[in-house]
């Protein structure tokens, strides 16, 4: 059994990774222990409001790299420990069978060398699957600069892998994480993308990252603007087919002249998640949302801000506008848009029927007509005022918690509930 002190050190250092999602895998129980729960499942919530879904732990915090923002960096004077593959497997199984967790999120500092570390991670997940008969969720962090054969092998056992992009620009990466290069992060992402496509085309038996790849970047440790971040996000989705990009607002755990002393505002992080949502589900391009050297508005959510810049496109008629256009109306979320599209097949919609269908009109009414009628304000200054007064809640509903909600079975719906329907 792993010792208490080791467990503490190895979780303390892993906890700033924001992803804790266990969704996307339908792995069936093959006679051992565990299975996948495609919608994801939260097992507990910590006082910081985050969900615990996975056992998030490092294999080792003994690092040869020297990322400035990290408390495990080589220069830091901290106790160093490493767990054995057996300790991790046993911990996972014993937590899992008590229903504490949905699976394992295994990561590591670069211990000895990238290849050595990746070998240890691979050994652990392979053992967990084959010797311990574990069918639950495994998210494995990839180690930059590790040999590609190790990466390929690991993908056979993990449900999800992630290479963290860490910082939004190559320049900041050089400055703050000097041993990690853009290439060392992007090449394995590309490799996994390619191999997954090949795997699917050849209809192999077994699994190859059923829950895909994700990444994470720290926001606010370096000077990049939201415009750059959102453009980078867009290209990560488009080029590598990532499932998710996570943003982690910078929390200072280390003092360094190159790093800010203050944590990043959580509203900024929230706005980035909202913009990310617009890219993935609402058909927006980064270029429409903001300039490359601009930041997202803190006052308005990104869809609202876009609509206010494009008032000439509104109001749109709910009985006629295509779904893609409805999705762009502030206050109308995906569910409402499809409800409207369904309902208008049978009858012409009025504001009363919309209200009955529980479409929230508080913001939307300024941007739509129903049967030619308009109930919003024509005065754009008044509209701005009304809209901005209604957006204070996101501060408490920050998205730094992984967007799972025990109340909602569908992971992405939960996400939308948390981001606030746009």
């Amino acid at each position, binding site marked *: 059994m792993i010792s208490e002190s080791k467990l503490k050190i190895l979780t303390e250092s892993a*906890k700033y990774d924001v992803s804790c999602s266990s969704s996307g895998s339908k792995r069936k129980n093959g006679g051992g222990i565990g299975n996948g729960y495609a919608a994801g499942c939260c097992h507990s*919530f910590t*006082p910081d409001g*985050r969900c*615990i879904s996975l056992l998030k732990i490092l294999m080792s915090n003994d690092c040869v790299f020297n990322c400035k923002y990290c408390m495990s960096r080589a220069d830091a004077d901290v106790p160093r420990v490493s767990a054995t593959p057996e300790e991790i497997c046993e911990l996972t199984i014993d937590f899992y069978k008590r229903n504490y967790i949905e699976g394992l999120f295994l990561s590591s500092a670069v211990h000895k060398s990238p290849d050595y570390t990746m070998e240890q991670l691979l050994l652990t997940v392979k053992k967990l699957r084959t010797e311990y008969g574990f069918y639950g969720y495994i998210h494995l962090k990839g180690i930059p600069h590790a040999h590609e054969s190790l990466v390929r092998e690991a993908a056979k056992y993990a449900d999800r892998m992630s290479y963290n992009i860490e910082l939004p620009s190559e320049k900041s990466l050089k400055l703050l994480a000097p041993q990690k290069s853009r290439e060392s992060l992007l090449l394995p992402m590309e490799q996994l993308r390619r191999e997954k496509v090949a795997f699917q085309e050849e209809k192999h038996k077994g699994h190859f990252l059923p829950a895909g790849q994700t990444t994470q970047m720290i926001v606010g440790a370096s000077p990049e603007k939201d415009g750059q971040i959102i453009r980078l996000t867009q290209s990560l989705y488009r080029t590598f087919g990532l499932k998710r990009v996570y943003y982690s607002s910078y929390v200072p755990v280390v003092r360094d002249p190159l790093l800010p002393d203050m944590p990043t505002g959580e509203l900024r992080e929230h706005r980035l998640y909202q913009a990310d949502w617009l890219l993935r589900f609402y058909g927006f391009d980064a270029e429409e949302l903001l300039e490359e050297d601009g930041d997202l508005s803190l006052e308005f959510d990104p869809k609202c801000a876009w609509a206010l810049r494009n008032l000439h496109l509104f109001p749109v008629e709910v009985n006629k506008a295509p779904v893609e256009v409805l999705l762009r109306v502030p206050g109308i979320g995906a569910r409402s848009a499809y409800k409207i599209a369904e309902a208008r097949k049978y009858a012409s919609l009025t504001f009363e029927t919309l209200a009955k269908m529980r479409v929230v009109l508080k913001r939307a009414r300024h941007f739509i007509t129903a049967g030619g009628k308009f109930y919003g304000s024509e005065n754009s200054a008044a509209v701005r005022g009304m809209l901005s007064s209604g957006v204070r809640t996101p501060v408490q509903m920050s998205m730094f918690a992984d967007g799972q909600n025990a109340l909602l079975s569908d992971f992405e719906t939960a996400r939308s509930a948390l981001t606030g329907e746009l």
Partner: protein
Amino acid sequence: MIYFYDGSKDAFLTAFLLAYNDGDATLTSGSAQLSIGSQTVFVQADFSRARRAEKRLLAIDKGSMRDLSVLLRSGDGDRDMVALDYFKFLAKTGRPVREMLAEDCVLAAAECMRRVGNEVHRFHGFVRFMETGCGALYAPISPDNDICDLLVPHFRARLPGFPFVIHDVKRKKAAVYDGEHTFLAPLDRAEIVLSAGEEKWQALWRDYYDGVNIPSRKRLKQMRGYMPVRYWKFMPEKKG
């Protein structure tokens, strides 16, 4: 008229027939406020009447008995009336009404059923098993709704090699999986002998829970929203 019944399906269906044309009916399986002069009747389950009602409702809506079973699991104080109104409306309308959410009685029933479903999903995460000396797993729970047997398929699918007991301590019953079969049994108090490692694993779990928290971000309200305090009783990470 006030109709008392025992909360079972057949007694509900019997009462449903009796109260069908009573516009003033109050149906309850708990307590009701009696005012002077109010008339009461205690409805016993009547097998043949219940089958008659069941047949009629099923002919209108194939999903009606599933709805009823969910509604009767609800711990909401008004669930008997919600169910009665819903089935009366269903019978009067003569076709499935599930989607007619603009009707108050349909909406109330839908919300009531949704709460039951939500709690099942929540407990997929919140159940905490303890390992007993013989290797079986034991989890006490105290849910709002009567759901312990609904939790079994989920855990059986992922832990096929582990016999387990999910014990609803409030309703004094337990859903049991003996490694082969599942069944429901009355259970008042369980005498549990924990395995040698159990307390250590619980302690490690508490360490983990404390370790992953980021203290500079305090959002207790959010935590309690997702994981209401009434569920904490059987979670090692929230005890002591």
